[in-house]
């Protein structure tokens, strides 16, 4: 019940001196983030100085540049996406319910969760695809292949006449050197996730910083930053990557993530900027300023959280493009990954050795299917996120 009497409420008599903690309590999350980043830094130092070959003797893991970038990105992702959702269960539950209400949401959310989980643990669980000539060109389950023209062919499943039938041992078939397509695609997910998360983290940080600074501060800062974005957007990241990778960085995933991360954020920055321009004149930003909040506080606590939907949506458009770019570059032999890239698999799947590509159709088909599903799922996810996450919707 509201106290309607005019008795002075307790808050008018609170003695702030005794209530005061004396120092602003450092938030647990900030401490956690710092600790996690320190651990990564310590591991990096250890790896760099003590054990350059592998991280720990018992862990046969030679940590590469992309792995470090991925680790840092994962820490940031956990801090700024997973922790807030976990801490705010009501909101998380509400979002999930909203997602599940839409069929498109269920599909895309499920796909992306599977994508994430497979990307992190997939290759370790399923193992890496090994060359096995005894199992080359096996068709997928429920399909068959004419083995007439293939020399030294062993059929793992049933032979009916000249036709070898697929088995559940290789549900998606094998390549011409007997690599399991399932394992290849799982490894493709790993590559995609590493690249997407690493490049996306760089993009989000840069684009958000530039976009909010331009939109919130306006004036000559806006002109300068957006002018730079214009110039940068005329330089295709893919060209810069090809040059830098050839000359300095090596044709690895690290170079790709770095170059795309640092050069491909212009579009996102523009979206964030227009969002910030709108938020700047919103009542709650004025209210926060009138309550004595600094510009930095307003941007961090009000402008950026209210732009989340825009940032996430823009990212979901960018991530599949990155995955596709990597596959395309690998196809052109301009990008190598530690093991097998889908681009290479596609290239060999399309060669006429030992049989024409349409005879071993499953290799190209499943790679393409995977890429199409990934692109569609991320785009649909972006649409649903925009609907679900947009805080402005709730006002109306």
């Amino acid at each position, binding site marked *: 019940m*509201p106290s309607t009497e*005019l008795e002075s409420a307790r808050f008018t008599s609170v003695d702030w001196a005794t209530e005061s*903690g004396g120092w602003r309590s450092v938030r647990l999350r900030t401490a956690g983030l710092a600790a996690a980043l320190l651990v990564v830094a310590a591991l990096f130092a250890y790896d760099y100085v003590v054990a350059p070959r592998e991280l720990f003797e018992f862990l046969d893991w030679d940590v590469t540049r992309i792995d470090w970038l991925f680790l840092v990105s994962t820490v940031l992702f956990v801090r700024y996406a997973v922790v807030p959702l976990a801490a705010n269960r009501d909101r998380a539950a509400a979002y999930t319910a909203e997602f599940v209400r839409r069929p498109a949401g269920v599909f895309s959310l499920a796909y992306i969760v599977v994508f994430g989980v497979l990307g992190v643990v997939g290759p370790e669980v399923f193992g890496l695809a090994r060359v096995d000539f005894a199992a080359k060109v096996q068709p997928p389950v429920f399909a068959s292949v004419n083995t007439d023209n293939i020399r030294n062919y062993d059929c793992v499943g049933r032979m009916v006449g000249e036709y070898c039938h697929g088995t559940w041992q290789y549900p998606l078939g094998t390549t011409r050197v007997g690599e399991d397509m399932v394992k290849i695609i799982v490894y493709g997910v790993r590559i995609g996730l590493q690249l997407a998360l690493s490049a996306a983290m760089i993009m989000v940080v840069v684009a958000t910083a530039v976009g909010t600074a331009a939109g919130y501060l306006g004036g000559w800062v806006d002109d300068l930053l957006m002018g730079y974005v214009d110039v940068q957007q005329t330089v295709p990241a893919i060209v810069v990557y090809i040059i830098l990778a050839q000359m300095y960085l090596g044709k690895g995933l690290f170079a790709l993530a770095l170059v795309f991360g640092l050069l491909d954020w212009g579009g996102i920055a523009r979206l964030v900027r227009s969002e910030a321009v709108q938020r700047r004149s919103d*009542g709650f930003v*004025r209210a926060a300023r009138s*309550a*004595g909040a*600094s510009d930095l506080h307003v941007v961090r606590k009000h402008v950026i959280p209210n732009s989340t939907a825009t940032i996430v949506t823009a990212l979901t458009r960018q991530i599949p493009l990155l995955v596709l770019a990597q596959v395309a570059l690998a196809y052109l032999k301009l990008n190598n990954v530690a093991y097998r890239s889908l681009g290479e698999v596609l290239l060999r799947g399309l060669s006429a050795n030992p049989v024409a590509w349409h005879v071993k159709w499953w290799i190209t088909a499943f790679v393409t299917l995977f890429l199409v599903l990934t692109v569609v799922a991320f785009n649909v996810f972006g649409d649903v996120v925009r609907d679900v996450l947009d805080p402005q919707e709730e006002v109306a």
Partner: protein
Amino acid sequence: MAGPLLSVDDLHTQFDTEEGTVKAVDGVSFDVREGETVCLVGESGSGKTVACESITKLVPRPPGRITGGEVRFDGEDLTELSGKALREYRGGRIGHVFQNPQEALDPVYTVGDQLVEAIRLHRDVPKAAARERAAELLDRVGIGDVSERIDDYPHQFSGGMKQRVVIAMALACDPDLLIADEPTTALDVTIQAQVLRLLNDLQDEHGMAMLFVTHDLGVVAEIADRVVVMYAGKVMETGDVYQVFEDPSHPYTRALLECLPGRGRALDTIGGTLPDPTSPPDGCRFHPRCPHAVPECETDGQPGFRDVGGGHDVSCLLHDDRHDLPRAMEADDD
């Protein structure tokens, strides 16, 4: 303390737009004494809001710019202060309530979190203590079921309830001055009365001064101690609320009062519209619409103030000795 709590002196605020410079506030002066309620009255677009926002330099710049004048609050000139020092005043000693409560709360946070934020911007207290105070504030502004509602999001509140939350935020740090910019305009009439009463009660409890912006003279009559009438960026008339209502001495104030419904005759309007803000008329700003204008009204800038009795100042040539008051300006007899 000697002198008024807030003293605005010859304040100029302008906006640089593509159509030209808009002098939204053009030499405005008024005082707010401790514990007093001053109402800024005028049509939409007369510069009331900009004047209020200029006090703590909330006017967005660019395009807004404070080009002159002094704002003395408790002896300190706020126009001279740096951003950091100014933030101590904003929310700490001067609270703001804005017009549209639908927008004034961030949809991302619960109302409790926003109150805690407002408190902790100025008080170095642990979250738990701030939350306790937030709950008390919500209780005081009349949000029932505080323990339930403190964790609700703004969209779960009605307009009137949101405005109560906004008022609670403005009061979070016991300001000495509350600037309320049309706090009831966006609310329906029954809620308006409740919010006005709440503001009045809170003002009595805290002994704070209030600068209240409105275009609703009914509201003015209810809460004001003194009235400042603004038109096109200039002050037309200031005085005690009784003086201004009993004896409106500027033709603009009279016209405004005649627009009030329920004065026993058909509704009047003021003919014409506000002047073009980029090129206001020379002379008295109101002369193109003034029924009593004489040729002298059209030149020499806004007339100086003349005291027509007991601190009741009017910026109108008709109160000069050289002119006879037109009959219509004699004391109202209906």
